[in-house]
């Protein structure tokens, strides 16, 4: 029963993947798509080939990696904090990443440095999100109240944006533009090497998750019971932080902050299965996150027009109503 639903999600993912490759400002016939896929690429004209292999394929893979990774980060946060409203964005992890990137793009100019490599931005984003996560965790040891934690997460966001505001006041329009474009989020324009790095990070993150599946399930009983079942709580906590920072920080570095996926997908997965067993929940959330972001990407391309919307705006437009719907039906809110 549950495996059937997961299989259905796999099929849906394949369908959306093909749709994402074929639809857009230029429609590509399925025949051309099939020719490229089966290696008979010379039967397709060069511009179509370029659109598929250099533009749409990287973007579709980017959407899958981003959707799956953010869903994982959200799921881990919800289990760790035992809070159904936790997620990389709500707790200010994305804001931390944003602050890190702002410091590198705009702060570097202030102290007279000019070289801003892509690697520097990625590193800044990862350190930014790691910093906020560790701060949140240190606070969570003292404060058992989860609502308090959420408010602190929001305050982190405010603090970050205040610092970003000060930085942008003093930076050049060129630097400001670069930061604003980063913060709108984008799945496009990725080089294959960049996608390979993100894929590597995602695979490491997923591999580490495999090691803590049992502790994650034990955490569903609360920390004291988990401890009594022989779970190494300290190690599990730090593993969760590490994985979340890798995934959320890495994705935010490449694609910019992308809202709501990490919060909404774990809930949708729990409702679909329905179970909180991480052995089922993890594959489901991975697939559902990938599907959802492919849908968002399709919407953002505005098929049949020449316009495309920033991805972060689309996920918020689709995600905010979902979260409101979840809160209205409070009985469906679990962790």
């Amino acid at each position: 029963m549950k495996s059937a639903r997961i299989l259905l999600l796999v099929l849906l993912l394949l369908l959306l993947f093909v749709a994402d490759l074929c639809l857009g400002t230029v429609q590509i016939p399925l025949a051309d798509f099939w020719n490229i896929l089966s290696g008979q690429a010379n039967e397709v004209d060069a511009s179509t080939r370029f659109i598929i292999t250099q533009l749409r394929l990287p973007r579709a893979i980017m959407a899958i990696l981003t959707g799956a990774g953010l869903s994982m980060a959200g799921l881990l946060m919800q289990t760790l904090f035992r809070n159904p409203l936790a997620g990389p964005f709500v707790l200010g992890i994305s804001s931390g990443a944003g602050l890190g990137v702002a410091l590198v793009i705009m702060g570097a100019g202030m102290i007279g440095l000019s070289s801003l490599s892509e690697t520097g931005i990625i590193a800044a984003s990862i350190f930014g999100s790691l910093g906020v996560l560790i701060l949140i965790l240190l606070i969570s040891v003292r404060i058992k109240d989860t609502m308090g934690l959420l408010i602190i997460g929001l305050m982190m966001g405010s603090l970050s944006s205040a610092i970003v505001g000060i930085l942008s006041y003093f930076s050049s329009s060129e630097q400001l533009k670069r930061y604003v474009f980063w913060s709108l989020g984008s799945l496009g324009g990725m080089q294959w090497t960049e996608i390979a790095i993100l894929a590597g990070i995602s695979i490491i993150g997923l591999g580490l998750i495999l090691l803590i599946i049992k502790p994650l399930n034990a955490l569903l009983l609360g920390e004291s019971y988990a401890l009594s079942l022989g779970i190494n709580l300290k190690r599990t906590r730090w593993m969760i932080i590490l994985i979340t920072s890798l995934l959320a920080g890495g994705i935010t570095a490449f694609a910019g902050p992308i809202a709501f996926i990490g919060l909404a997908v774990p809930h949708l997965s729990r409702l679909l299965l329905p179970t909180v067993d991480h052995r089922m929940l993890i594959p489901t959330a991975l697939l559902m996150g990938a599907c959802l972001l492919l849908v968002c990407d399709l919407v953002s391309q505005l098929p049949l027009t020449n316009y495309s919307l920033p991805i972060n705006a689309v996920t918020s437009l689709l995600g905010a109503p979902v979260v409101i719907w979840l809160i209205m039906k409070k009985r469906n809110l679990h962790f």
Partner: protein
Amino acid sequence: MLTIDNIQVGYGSCVVARHEGESAFAKAELTAILGTNGAGKSTLLRSLHNGSHLLNGNIRLEGLDINNWNPTERSRKIAVVLTERHFSYFLKVRELLELSRSPYTNFLGKLQPLDHERIHAVMQSFDLESLFDRRLGTLSDGQLQRVLIARAMVQDTEYLLMDEPTSHLDINHKADLMFELREYCHETGRSMIYASHEIQLALALSDKILTIHQGQIDFFERKELTASEKLEKMFPSDYLAFQRGDIKFNFPK
């Protein structure tokens, strides 16, 4: 054998309760912990479980200091029932019990036939089969409490540490459950240590009574305690009368 040796338990630098000399919780015995609110019953239980509130002295499980036990090895020796309920209410009773076999399963938590056997045996003896596929959020407080006690039994340990196991239960369930637990402990050589506010039930049931009074931890045989004036001193009230040598008390006014 679980022993305490000149211990002080409490928080930070604040000692809540102490015990002088060395005492042991014997095999196949029920020990009730009695004391007024805030006396340190839960603090003592937590210290016995994992040494978390032990400020001074030694707590030893099978001769080895409780702090030096490997967590997984310890989870095969001691199971707990706590008053806090921070779990996911989306869990099914079945999933909760399966997770309680964690000390014995592999890194993915895969259950073996032996694990299923244990779960079903406990479900049968606790009469919980009808609740097997219910989510925790749909249970009443009393049903949940019985499930939590069953959970500790599923863990299949030598020691059961329980904090107010009879809370939320009807009087018939209280009696059934506690006397069945006693029978189980005596037959299988398990030890149960539990904190309780149910003085009468504790006196009727337990092999030993541990009292925490004015920061002092003492052990009593049941008869020894009822013959003394300890209970009157521990629970002073103008409206309450303990009768020496009896496990009953009444309300004379």
